[in-house]
């Protein structure tokens, strides 16, 4: 999936969750700074999983310094694992 599509998906998703226009979503911020917590990360990762067909560790979402960094990492396939026989991940 191209970078631009992940970027657009994330932008659309955040605009909807935050109820702000897409143009106002700033990718150089953290999810946390938007008041989004690990529950939101779980939901967002779940949505992206359906888009991409890969398992995404929602705990990793909260680790990136910015949403932009997360988009870039996803585009490069970081933190993505094929959907099969995943061991349990332990990460609060």
């Amino acid at each position, binding site marked *: 999936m191209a970078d631009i599509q992940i970027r657009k998906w994330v932008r659309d998703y955040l605009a909807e969750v935050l109820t702000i226009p897409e143009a106002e979503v700033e990718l150089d911020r953290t999810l946390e700074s938007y008041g989004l917590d690990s529950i939101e990360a*779980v939901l967002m990762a779940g949505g992206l999983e359906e888009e991409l067909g890969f398992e995404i560790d929602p705990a990793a979402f909260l680790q990136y310094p910015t949403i932009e960094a997360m988009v870039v990492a996803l585009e490069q396939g970081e933190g993505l694992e094929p959907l099969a026989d*995943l061991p*349990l991940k332990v990460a609060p």
Partner: protein
Amino acid sequence: MTAATSLAFADDPISRLDPADPYPTYAELRARAPVHWSSRLSGWVLTRYDDVRGVLDHPDFRIVDPASRLSRLAERGGPLLANLIAFHACLPLLHDPDHSRGVKRVFFQLLTGRRQLGLREGLAQRAAEILRAGAAAGRIDLAAGYGSPLTVFASGTLFGLPESEHGVLTASAGVSTLLSGAVHSLRELKRLDAEAARLVDRFRAPLAERHEATADDGLSRMLRAADAELGWTDDQLAGFCAFILGVSRETTFTALSGGCLRLLQEPALRARLCEDPAKRPAALRELLRLVSPLQFAARVAARDTQIAGQAIRAGQPVCAMLAAANRDPAVFPDPDRVDLEREGPEPLAFGAGAFRCLGEQLAQMELGVAIDGILDYPGLGLGREPVVWGTGMHVRELRHVPAIFVGAEAAGG
């Protein structure tokens, strides 16, 4: 201890932790960064006895509350994972003194029957049967074939389930993993919800039967207490029973098989305990300290606070590493050794403070029986096949301990 010390790690030692032997990692952290921010766990990791003990005893650190998190997940448009919510529903109640007393009373209904049932004697008999069969076959798996069936027998007997139904108590498939504070993907949460459903469902029919006909077994007593103390429905109690099973199974059977493993590794200790049975309680305490199946207790800071000078923000998770505290050389000199004369503070295998494990005495009794059984077979030794540990970081699960009988015992003990 400052945040800078943690940041000095180029990577997170926790991500290099080997579940088959986590102790070198704990020792490294204890020496270099005893209050360590783990990017892998997204939480603070404590490895010194005093820090771990301090967090367990302090009301500013609350237990994790997966039920509330899962409810919020549903409110925000995620799936309603009702079985996982029912499984964890007792946890928020533990913060309220009245409710907490009620939950504990319901739980203790399960344990009060153990003398009357002759649980210890029944368990000892079962252990002897299993070992006799093992001796006849010349081999035994002390985890899957000894520790595991003994814990199943104990919980099945206490609940009052007929032995033909004990099989349903064997599966719990990591449902308790949310107690580690773990963030899981939706896919994984749905899988865990299905596992929780299987556990909760197993208690529904037995509870319904006990409404029809009063019996004096564990489940019947729990049913009456849950109604009187907490006004619970059958479904709520079924969730609680599933929770008890889910949090006790892997921890207890790993305590049993881990204790047995250690004995097989230390022939001198075995000989000593055979000669001097009065030393067995001291040995139990040491074995539990060294095995510590629950590796850490997860807490959440209720307000901005600090641990050993490190600022902890409200809402941040804290992993109080019980297993690391139990081998802190500052309080347990020569910590990896079994020392039957050891003094010092109490080990933290069952936690401490307001949320200390309620099943401690039961687990100790089961371990005592398992060890008594092993000590009757001096010819039992480790086999050539490897010991197999699970991959969990929260509950360290001992899956296989292949052992063999040598000499006359192999012919039938």
